[in-house]
């Protein structure tokens, strides 16, 4: 047994297998749509092939057995013995799903062969001609026992043998390991020195092995040069030996059982491109150089060195910034990791609903923070299900409306300002205003739709309670409404918007922050405290004149902002600290927006704009209403980050109370 513990490679194997399955699924979907590219077939073959190889190596025998048959099926397709029919695509798509499940079970240390996988394996085997491919490579039949006391071997390499990297000396060495060896060299074919090519072989040998080695062992020495030489093996047989034991077939090494239960497979990891790591290493290198340059000022600076010091500090600043960006980029992954699941989903849904849908994915290389990526999948799935179920029409209806029979679903990601925008757009029927109004009235969300703009009506579908389990189809609904989509997106610091034109389709626009770890914020002072308000939520900062303020019944104040009256929230009231300015006209009001509602945050004064590295308050203290986190300022003091959405909700509750 080797000292090498194979369990350490399991995680890498699992991850690359999932990548392979994704690539396989994409290729199958493209083939399903009639693509005719041999490389696609190769991609599918290679995925099955690699997973089989890895699974066998790392001891996942069930997975290996399953993928072996899938690979055989693909081999038939690849070699042209079987057309890539719908039935094959279908079966392989299901096989991919099953392998995914089997891998998950294997990683959890559980047996991977389930009733389901066995049933599918039977289907696969039935499809593969010959059928019985599931059996692992059977050990070769035992050779009849030979009572051999030695071998005479005539060996003459062809002239190119050395150029294949093989060396007769190696073979002699191996034969010598089997027993005493005598060699006779035949140099008769050696050319004149002038004609000799150093990389050609001209010699032949007659070898005598004086040991009763097994034929397989002797043949094994020459297995790599079979066909590259003249080779005759003649056993020297002794008088028949009584009952020589049958040579046991060389049993394939038993795959080792997986004992190592996969350690918490939830433990999250990021695979990072080499170039990102290289950039980091370079930057750290630069930083070290700068540091050593600055360290010469350790004992003080004289005036002549000031310029150099300034230069060094500027360099330090630049490198630190670059290093920060570089480290942040490690958390960023392309949205294709999320988009990838949609071709399959769209295909399956369209098939189920008898609709024709083309999925148009764009901006797949747009990078998002890993945390955001992990959480954006579900809302997107929901939007896509909705679009296909409710948005896009069946072909007959589309034709009647004067459109092509195939609907288009566009999913696009792009940068806009400091945000990432993800759009899900269909060219279907658009929202049905009357139906939405009727439903909203029925659910008691509004009294009537009279006078509501189309946009306001569209917004209704995000209201809690608009969609209920009873009102949804088995496809899109599942009892979860658009309100959950909006809440999920908002939890990520994002927003969802909707645009719909009757007859022309619906577009959902999700706007997300680039990262959750760093925010751009406006620092504001309230008494001795400093608060940071995220820039994304800020509409404007204004100085309010006393005559633009009204008190309202039950306490509280409103101020006029453009054509709206907005409530004023005094941060020192909310957070129970001491403000220096109490009168509205002395301080400044930051107009912020959360969940579509605007309020004015009253602070003493604005300090400036800065990036803040978000530190969790919950992890270090406890959750505080109206605060989303904390950060450390340049002078080492702590500033709290205002949770605008939370403040808006608090204000809403106060108003309702």
């Amino acid at each position, binding site marked *: 047994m080797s000292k*090498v513990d194979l369990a350490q*490679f399991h995680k890498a194997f699992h991850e690359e297998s999932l990548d392979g399955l994704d690539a396989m699924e994409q290729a199958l979907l493209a083939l399903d749509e009639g693509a005719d590219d041999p490389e696609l077939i190769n991609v599918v073959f*290679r995925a099955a*092939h690699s997973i089989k190889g890895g699974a*066998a*190596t790392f001891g996942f025998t069930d997975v290996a057995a399953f993928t072996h048959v899938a690979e055989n099926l693909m081999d038939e397709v690849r070699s042209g013995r079987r057309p890539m029919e719908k039935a094959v695509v279908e079966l392989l798509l299901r096989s991919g799903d099953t392998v995914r499940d089997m891998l998950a079970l294997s990683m959890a240390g559980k047996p991977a062969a389930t009733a389901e996988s066995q049933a599918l394996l039977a289907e696969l085997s039935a499809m593969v001609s010959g059928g019985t491919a599931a059996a692992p490579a059977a050990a070769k039949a035992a050779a009849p026992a030979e009572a051999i006391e030695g071998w005479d071997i005539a060996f003459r390499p062809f002239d190119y043998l050395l150029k*294949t*990297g093989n060396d007769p000396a*190696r073979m002699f*060495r191996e034969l010598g390991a089997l027993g005493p060896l005598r060699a006779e060299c035949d140099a008769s074919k050696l050319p004149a020195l002038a004609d000799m090519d150093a990389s050609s072989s001209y010699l032949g040998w007659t070898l005598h092995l004086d040991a009763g080695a097994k034929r397989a062992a002797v043949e094994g020495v020459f297995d790599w040069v079979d066909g590259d030489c003249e080779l005759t093996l003649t056993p020297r047989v002794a008088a028949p030996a009584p009952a020589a034991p049958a040579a046991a077939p060389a049993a394939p090494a038993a795959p080792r059982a997986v004992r190592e239960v996969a350690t918490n497979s939830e433990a999250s990891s990021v695979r990072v491109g080499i170039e990102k790591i290289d950039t980091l290493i370079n930057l750290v290198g630069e930083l070290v150089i700068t540091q050593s340059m600055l360290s010469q000022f350790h004992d003080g600076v004289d005036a002549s060195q000031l310029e150099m010091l300034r230069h060094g500090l500027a360099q330090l600043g630049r490198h630190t910034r670059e290093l920060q960006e570089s480290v942040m980029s490690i958390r960023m992954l392309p949205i294709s990791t999320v988009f990838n699941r949609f071709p399959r989903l769209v295909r399956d849904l369209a098939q189920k609903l008898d609709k024709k849908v083309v999925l148009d994915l764009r901006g797949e290389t747009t990078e998002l923070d890993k945390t955001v990526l992990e959480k954006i999948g579900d809302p997107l799935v929901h939007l896509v299900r909705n679009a296909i179920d409710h948005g896009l029409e069946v072909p007959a209806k589309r034709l009647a409306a004067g459109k092509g029979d195939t609907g288009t679903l566009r999913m696009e990601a792009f940068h806009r300002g400091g945000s990432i925008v993800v759009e899900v757009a269909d060219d279907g029927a658009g929202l049905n205003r009357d139906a939405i109004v009727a439903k909203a009235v029925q659910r008691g969300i509004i009294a009537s739709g009279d006078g509501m703009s189309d946009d306001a009506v569209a917004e209704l579908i995000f209201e809690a309670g608009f969609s209920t389990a009873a009102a949804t189809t088995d496809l899109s609904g599942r009892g979860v409404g658009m309100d959950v989509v909006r809440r999920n997106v908002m939890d990520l610091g994002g927003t969802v918007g909707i645009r719909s034109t009757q007859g022309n389709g619906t577009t959902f626009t999700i706007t997300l922050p680039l990262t959750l770890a760093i925010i751009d914020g406006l620092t504001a002072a309230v008494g001795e405290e400093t608060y940071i308000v995220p820039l994304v939520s800020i509409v404007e900062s204004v100085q309010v004149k006393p005559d633009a303020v009204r008190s309202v019944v039950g306490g509280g104040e409103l101020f006029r902002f453009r054509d709206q009256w907005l409530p004023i929230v005094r941060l020192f009231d909310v957070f129970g600290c001491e403000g220096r300015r109490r009168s509205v006209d002395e301080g400044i009001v930051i107009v912020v927006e959360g969940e579509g509602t605007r309020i004015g945050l009253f602070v003493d004064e604005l300090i400036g704009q800065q990036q803040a590295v978000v530190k969790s308050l919950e992890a270090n203290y406890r959750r505080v209403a109206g605060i989303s986190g904390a950060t450390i300022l340049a002078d080492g003091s702590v500033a709290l980050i205002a949770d605008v959405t939370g403040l808006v909700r608090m204000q809403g509750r106060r108003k309702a109370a």
Partner: protein
Amino acid sequence: MAKILAVDDSASMRSMVAFTLRGAGHDVDEADNGQAALDTARGTKFDLVLADVNMPVMDGISMVREMRTMAGYSGVPILMLTTESNPEKKMEGKAAGATGWLVKPFDPDQLLATVARVLG
């Protein structure tokens, strides 16, 4: 100890091979496809190349064919790491100039034994 190039598109397989060989004291470089292997081999002289057969960009057999035309590589042992136990694939590899092969699945001991066999 030998300088070895491990070529495989599967990172788990590659790291298993590299880890095992490094553990035995060898100096191992890695490449994830045939083209990358050729690029690496142009800059460094290896004593042994271990290459998977099925790889994207450039497969192992094309890689062997190319590598055999490179200066200094005509006689370097190149072993194919392959699950293709069928003779045609081995023959194809041999025809391209491969020295021999190691059939997957193999365990670290088998790998070390084969490498020892080639390097002597």
